[in-house]
């Protein structure tokens, strides 16, 4: 196997305070290129907390998270932000788009922040992503002028803008009807199929989990099951 995109070693996240709360504990996890993994578990089991650790939005109290082979716990906030910008993409249950900006501008946002592409190339890529996600004619609309499914697709386009190694999606279809969620799911699968990418998706929906290559089960902040889907 090649270098893992993300590797979690013995990571725990415990909130301090009068009554310490364990969000996740003793997590060992490897996300490899080409994977489409589902994280399942009861409500409050720590799925989102795990995603925040994988996405460098949160820092484990103990253990380590390696992105692209690089340990990240000792990094400062700015270095973590830089890694997030170039290596990771997030899609949340709610769309989380900037409300005053058009769909296209929202997709451009991470590219402009990173500045790896020339402005013309950034625009071309934004248009391409929107077209791929079936939003060709909706780029000029602001989020409040789009449907829920369309917004979630814009959010996916934005998460993919900088060609992240790992796309992390926390219940991306939680608010969508069956047709829309099927479409979103298909897109995520396509992403995972892309060169050297991986997708990790949190879901409550067994039909979605059934489509994943791998199912990680969490209960009470611990991984209690990690199964690859039987071939075929």
């Amino acid at each position: 196997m090649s270098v893992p995109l993300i590797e979690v070693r013995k990571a725990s996240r415990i909130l301090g305070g009068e009554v310490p709360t364990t969000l996740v504990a003793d997590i060992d996890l490897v996300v490899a290129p080409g994977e489409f993994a589902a994280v399942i578990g009861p409500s409050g089991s720590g799925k989102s907390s795990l995603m925040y650790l994988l996405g460098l939005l949160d820092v484990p109290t103990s253990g380590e998270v390696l992105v692209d082979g690089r340990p990240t716990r000792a990094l400062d906030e700015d270095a973590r932000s830089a890694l997030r910008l170039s290596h990771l993409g997030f899609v949340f249950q709610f769309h989380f788009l900037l409300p005053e900006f058009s769909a296209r501008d929202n997709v451009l946002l991470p590219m402009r922040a990173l500045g790896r592409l020339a402005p013309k190339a950034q625009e071309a890529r934004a248009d391409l992503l929107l077209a791929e996600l079936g939003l060709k004619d909706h780029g000029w609309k602001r989020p409040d002028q789009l449907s829920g499914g369309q917004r979630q697709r814009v959010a996916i386009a934005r998460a993919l803008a900088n060609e992240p190694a790992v796309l992390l999606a926390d219940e991306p279809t939680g608010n969508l009807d069956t047709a829309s969620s099927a479409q979103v799911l298909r897109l995520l699968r396509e992403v995972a199929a892309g060169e050297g990418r991986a997708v990790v998706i949190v879901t409550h929906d067994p039909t979605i989990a059934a489509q994943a290559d791998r199912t990680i089960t969490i209960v009470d902040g611990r991984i209690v099951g990690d199964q690859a889907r039987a071939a075929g």
Partner: protein
Amino acid sequence: MNLVLEIALTHVRFRLRQTVVGVLGVATGVGFSVMMASLMEGSQRDFIRQLVDALPHVSVTDERREPPPQPAAAVYQAVAVLGLSTDEKRKGISNPYATIAGLEGWVPGAVAPSVQTKAVARFGGRDTTATVIGIDPRREVKVSQLVTQMRDGTLDGLHKASNAVILGDGLARRIGIRVGNTVTLATADGRAFYAQVTGLFHSGVRQIDENQIYTLLRTAQVLAGRTALINEIRVRVDDAMQAREVAGRIEKLTGYKSVSWQEAHEDLLSAFQIRNAIMIMVVGAILLVASFGTYNIVSTITHEKARDIAIMKSLGFRESVVRRIFVLEAAVIGLGGCLAGFVLGYLLCRGLGLIEFRTGFSDRTGLPLIYEPAHYLLAGGVALASSVIAGYFPARKAARVHPVEIIRGAS
């Protein structure tokens, strides 16, 4: 456009009402600061110009700052000399014309002799004390503004009658006298002279207009009871602001007390310093209050935008970038406020310029306003800086927010 700037401008644009209120707050501060500075400095300059014009720039009198050393003190080691009586009459400047010629050699300006004495001016049962100044009209025109201050008659009128005098118009009004009338001048030692009023002058400074009488040197010398007396040398310096230095040199060379207009009005000038200090504090307070508005608005925006901040940070925007967005918003409000404030300040000044306003002290009819770019730059700079500083604190707080806290809250 720069991404940070674009986001900042978008936030501001989508909150037009709040932004306008913030801009108006800063604009009011800047506008009134500009107006106040214009008025304060305008009146100060106006006042100083009158002081400068009203008197000769430097007055060299027959006094000395230090009493001459007593011979006894030179011979014995005297600590104090008691029982000295001062001369009853002023001594006068010795060899005045030689001194004047000496000064004319180097003083950048003009020099004229004069005699000062006191008298009571009486006419038709009314009287008032007056300072009688004997002048040489040909030289006087070079050291004072008397020619331009003449209201009735001319300076040459002094030659047209024996004992001719020119009165300040205020003094004339006090004793009810007109040009052509004869005034009685009574000296301290009881002598009285008749003098014909051949002119009136008006300097604009009430104290002078109600107190001074000009006459020829000869006439003043007779009044003082001493022929050939010259007890004041009047000097006009080309650059009025150098009067102090010139006075110092004259005093060093001649030994006579030389008083520049600055020294004569030291108290007024230091009152101006206090006035300016008060003005700076008031203006500073106005601008500070204006910046509170900016603080409030940026604070509100950061609260409303907590979710957007979480989005940007989760995307990988650095803390400093997020902070810069909101500081820029404060700067935009500050800058808008400055520009609007410049317009407001200018209009306020124009408006005040239209008001009729009289003081007893001088006879201008409007408020003395000046239009000085430095006032605009200073008020604008302070307002902009305080807006940015006011915006910095909520921006810093907002940028530090942990995105997870907000994402959890929103989901």
